[in-house]
């Protein structure tokens, strides 16, 4: 379980400390998924960086993983940055295998998974290219392949499907969903799409506008239920979420 209590983080502007997130407390059960949604600039990326221990000037508050402080060399945290974080000097294949390389996971044991993953993400004929030769959506899929292949203990993804067209996005959401069903990786992901949060987040955390705090933590009954998208309850649920965000932005 990931437990976060009273988490705050801020940035130095010219003269003062500007808070980005303030007093965030929540917990994510092992093997569950959590969607973070909220206005642009509300501190969602900052929140993910804090969990991964990447926030440069640190944070106040406490983040624990199964009761202990998060230690990246002990647990595997797969982190997918908002702009994918591909290394420009490595080919697609090398980028995909980077996580395993760092963690000394023998690649031979992952060959089959890698092949399936690459096919599902539609990257099979791009493996020898460099990131600069890919479209934004293709780069994003390489970033996804990298974190999926590692099968980490904790998966943190910042707007993981944002650069994809609607149809591809839905098919890759399903790829993620089936991967998650296989391995039940504890996942926190940021999204701007309410439907995405409702499809893939067992828990939905709604951030307020800047500086971010938690507006609402919602247990989501429609997780993984594509069959319910036409139902009245589903539409009402989505509508209420939308209303919440709208109200926050118009205040």
């Amino acid at each position, binding site marked *: 379980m990931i437990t976060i209590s009273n988490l705050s983080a801020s940035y130095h502007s010219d003269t003062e400390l500007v808070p980005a997130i303030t007093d965030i407390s929540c917990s994510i059960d092992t093997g569950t998924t959590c969607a973070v949604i909220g206005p642009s600039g509300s501190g969602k990326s900052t929140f993910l960086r804090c969990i991964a*221990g990447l926030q440069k000037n640190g944070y106040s508050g406490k983040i624990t993983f199964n009761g202990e402080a998060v230690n990246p060399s002990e647990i595997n945290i797969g982190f997918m940055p908002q702009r994918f974080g591909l290394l420009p000097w490595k080919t697609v294949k090398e980028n995909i295998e980077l*996580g395993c390389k760092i963690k000394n996971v023998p690649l031979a044991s992952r060959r089959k998974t890698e092949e399936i993953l690459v096919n599902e993400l539609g990257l099979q004929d791009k493996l020898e290219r460099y990131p600069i030769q890919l479209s934004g959506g293709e780069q994003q899929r390489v970033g996804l392949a990298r974190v999926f292949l590692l099968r980490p203990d904790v998966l943190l993804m910042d707007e993981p499907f944002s650069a994809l067209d609607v149809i591809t996005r839905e098919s890759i959401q399903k790829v993620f969903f089936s991967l998650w069903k296989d391995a039940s990786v504890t996942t926190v992901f940021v999204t701007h799409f309410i439907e995405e949060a409702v499809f893939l987040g067992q828990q939905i955390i709604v951030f307020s506008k800047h500086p971010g705090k938690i507006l609402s933590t919602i247990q989501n009954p429609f997780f993984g239920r594509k069959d319910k998208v036409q139902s009245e309850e589903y539409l009402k649920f989505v509508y209420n979420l939308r209303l919440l965000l709208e109200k926050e932005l118009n205040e």
Partner: protein
Amino acid sequence: MNNKVNTSFLSCLAGAAIILICWEIFALIVNLPIIPHPVKVFQKLYMIFGTTISAHLLHSLYRILIGLSCAVLIGVPLGICIGYFPKIERLFSPLVYLLYPVPKVALLPIVMLLFGTGDTSKVLIIFAIIIFQIVLSIRDSIHDISEELYYPLKSLGASFNDIFFDILWPASLPRLLTALRISTATSISVLFFTETFGTKYGLGYFIMDAWLRVNYLEMYAGIIVLSLLGLTVFCIFDLLEKTFCSWK
């Protein structure tokens, strides 16, 4: 790819031809021994290359290579440390900034007093000129690395070793090669200058000696070899950049 190499080779040849034609026309107009005809210079070069010039060339080559290698071996780690560790940067950056604009050639008398007139001072001066360009360009390329590139590695607890070989070194390679390419010209001119003192070997000595002997053909032959030396080093860095930085 092959086609590209061919066209750039052809355009190089065309460039050389233009220079030679201009030179020939100039020689015809001026019509003085100080501007000899290119054909005669190349005949002379062909005659004396094996007997004298090659020995001078080897000496110059040796000094350039040692100077360049030392500058790379020390400049690269230093530049990476300055760029990556803010504490080291705070310590070294003012030093680099203060020393960078000092014209190193002006230090030649001091260096020669301290290290003698031999190869050491010649190599040292070349080293001192190139290392600053290397350190600064490597530091800048480390600064330019987007923070996001580190995230997927650091979130997995990557060691400094991983970060060095997967990020820092490949990220600084293109600018290192550019810096080396640019400093080639500087280091060749400096080499020429330092070789006019305290040595009987090196292209600088050869050119000045031919000049004093009023042997203009030999002098020109020396200048051509020195230029070709610069061109070769330049092309090698160019080729290295094309091979190892094809991801750009």
